[in-house]
């Protein structure tokens, strides 16, 4: 009798464990930390600085979400993932969200069962070659040895591009950006291909960046953005609207400098008021405090400030806003209204 009770209890406990995998936001709150997947180190996007603090454009998204949910931008456990391990880490629940320059594609959305919450960087795949090779176009790369990060969309784009142009190449699969850099600099491959932003970031760390050129061809669309698992829409909304809050803040002119002023009392712009929680109850609707967006923007400023600080033209990476300017400036960055 006792044994059957014990077995019964065991079964119930097991079933409960199986069912407990729902609300991510509750998990994050009870844990007191956000587990955020980032890359293993792409300068400007996600890399630890000299003090071991993670810094970068993607890292800023993680910190903003942590600030919005937990009120503390440092309450983030950064989990470095490679192109290969990132999806397994997210699908298994090891990380709550992934902010690792990951391309939004149909099959990742529908087949891999992830929800992309938006785009924080519109990118495209490019090629970098040493200047001394004298190559001016990707179409001249017949027979070249190409270093490529394995498990990425770039791997598939590369195969498509060379097939369509009827030229051959030798792929050298590589796990991380650092290994690719080592092989490329040693001349073990002629070409390094990844997203153009990644190429710029990698080139910025070279001793002589001027000796390397990024070819004009951009062979794919790579909208990069944070993503979460399918099936937890509340959590997806939180990450989506945190990103949108950063973008909207730039559009409405909310910066880290005037944030305190604007949030102390309602302004005459109702959008800003709703965003910063001085009017309405948007925060409540997604299960957070009224000042969630205020905290998110307070970490490192709005989208534009984050861009300039980490990868903008004043940094060694030196990326222009281009497609990533606000829609009001002719770019693609656009947040749905806060209403």
């Amino acid at each position: 009798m006792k044994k059957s009770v014990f077995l019964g209890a065991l079964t119930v406990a097991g079933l409960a464990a199986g069912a407990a995998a729902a609300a991510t936001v509750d998990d994050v709150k009870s844990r007191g930390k956000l587990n955020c997947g980032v890359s293993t180190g792409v300068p400007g996007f996600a890399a630890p600085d000299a003090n071991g603090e993670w810094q970068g454009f993607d890292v800023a998204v993680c910190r903003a979400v942590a600030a919005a949910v937990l009120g503390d931008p440092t309450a983030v456990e950064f989990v470095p993932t490679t192109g290969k391990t990132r999806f397994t880490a997210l699908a298994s629940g090891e990380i709550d969200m992934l902010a690792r320059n990951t391309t939004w594609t149909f099959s990742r959305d529908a087949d891999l069962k992830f929800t992309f919450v938006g785009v924080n960087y519109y990118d495209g795949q490019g090629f970098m070659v040493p200047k001394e090779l004298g190559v001016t176009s990707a179409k001249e790369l017949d027979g070249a040895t190409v270093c490529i990060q394995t498990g990425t969309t770039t791997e598939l784009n590369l195969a498509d591009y060379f097939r369509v142009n009827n030229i051959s190449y030798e792929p050298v699969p590589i796990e991380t950006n650092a290994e690719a850099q080592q092989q490329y600099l040693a001349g073990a491959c002629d070409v390094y291909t990844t997203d153009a932003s990644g190429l710029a970031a990698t080139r910025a760390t070279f001793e002589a960046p001027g000796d390397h050129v990024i070819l004009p061809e951009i062979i794919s669309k790579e909208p990069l953005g944070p993503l979460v698992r399918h099936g937890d829409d509340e959590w997806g909304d939180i990450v989506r609207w945190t990103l949108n809050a950063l973008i909207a803040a730039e559009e409405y002119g909310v910066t880290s400098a005037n944030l305190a002023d604007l949030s102390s009392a309602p302004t005459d712009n109702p959008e800003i008021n709703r965003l910063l929680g001085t009017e309405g109850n948007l925060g409540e609707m997604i299960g957070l405090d009224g000042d969630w967006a205020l905290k998110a923007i307070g970490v490192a400023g709005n989208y534009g400030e984050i861009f300039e600080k980490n990868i903008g033209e004043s940094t060694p990476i030196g990326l222009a806003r281009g497609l990533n300017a606000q829609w009001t400036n002719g770019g693609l960055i656009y947040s749905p209204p806060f209403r």
Partner: protein
Amino acid sequence: MTTLTDPPKETFRLSMLIYDTRYRSITIQVVAMIGFMLFAAWLISNTAENLATLGKPIDFGFFSEPAGYDINQMLIEYQNQDTHLRAAFVGLLNTLLVAVLGCVTATVIGVLVGVLRLSPNWLIARIMTVYVEMFRNVPVLLWIVLAMAILIESLPAPSAFRGDEPEATMKLFGSVALTNRGVYVPEPLFSRSLGNMHLFGESGLRFDVSLDLIAFLLVLGLSIFAARKISARANAIQEDTGVRPKTWHINLGVIVLPTLILLVLLGFHLGYPELKGFNFQGGTHLRNSLIALWLALSLYTAAFIAEIVRGGIMAISAGQTEAAGALGLRPRRIMSLVVLPQALRVIIPPLISNYLNLTKNSSLAIAVGYMDITGTLGGITMNQTGRELECVLLLMLVYLCISLTISAVMNWYNNRVKLVER
């Protein structure tokens, strides 16, 4: 007069299952078994259910979809529009290649080092000790990465071979190019080739076998068989008359001539690598990743095999060596005729597990970008399709099959060499 009483009739009561020592152990085993099976069933059904909730029920349909990625080292024809199954097959052959190369090299080095470690020469024995201790006490992954780094950093890039006064030149009369992308060696070519035999039609497992290679092996095999016959006849004559007829020149002719004639008939010549465009073209390209993995796995496993060989030799009593010496055998013959054949019986069983280890360690290939089955099926395919569980289960099955095959072959060999007791 005796009264016979029937022994008390055994009646089975349920409580005897616990209180009767005859049944208790069975009861415990049955309960434990049921418990274990319930747990396993719960685990499986829970996994299946969770995957279904996630919208990813177990499904192997992705195998027939185009893979979409390229693989650098292909032992069979493959291009990026072939299926995931084909890509996995390419990876499997790469795994087998490095496993076979590794096992053979590790055995050769291991036996050599094991024997030399027992050498009376102080210096040689100490050097071998240092080698063994260095290699078996550092994780093999580090050896693989180190080998790759050395190859990449120390050898010249193909561009160094360019120009009128190149920094680097091809070795061995301009036939071999050592570059940091790999080693290019001449390849055998046949101008009057017999062509290929296509197996398995158009399926994902289709496979071409070179008829030239088959013909070559066939002729060589027959020649060796004939040479054996000639030697046997010589032995018989020696038994009868005590005089051994000279056979080495006949044997040499029997082995070499037919093979040579076949090669000439097929129009055998070597294709030399040549620098064209970005890379060397022609010749056989042994990629850095293969060399690094092969070298590191062989050297690492050889250290273990050396210890096994040393143990096997030391298990043979010194009396055997002394007796052989007393018969006038020289040290080398004592080793090859007396000690090693007996030591083999001790050596082979642990050797099997080292072969298995080497094969399984080859899954570290991705560290240097070698596209083995872990890199294709368990790497890119898994990543592009998102079928983690299916891919990992299949991968486990593949390694299990390879390992069991190696075990079966080695056990068969072990049975052949083991001491026959009468």
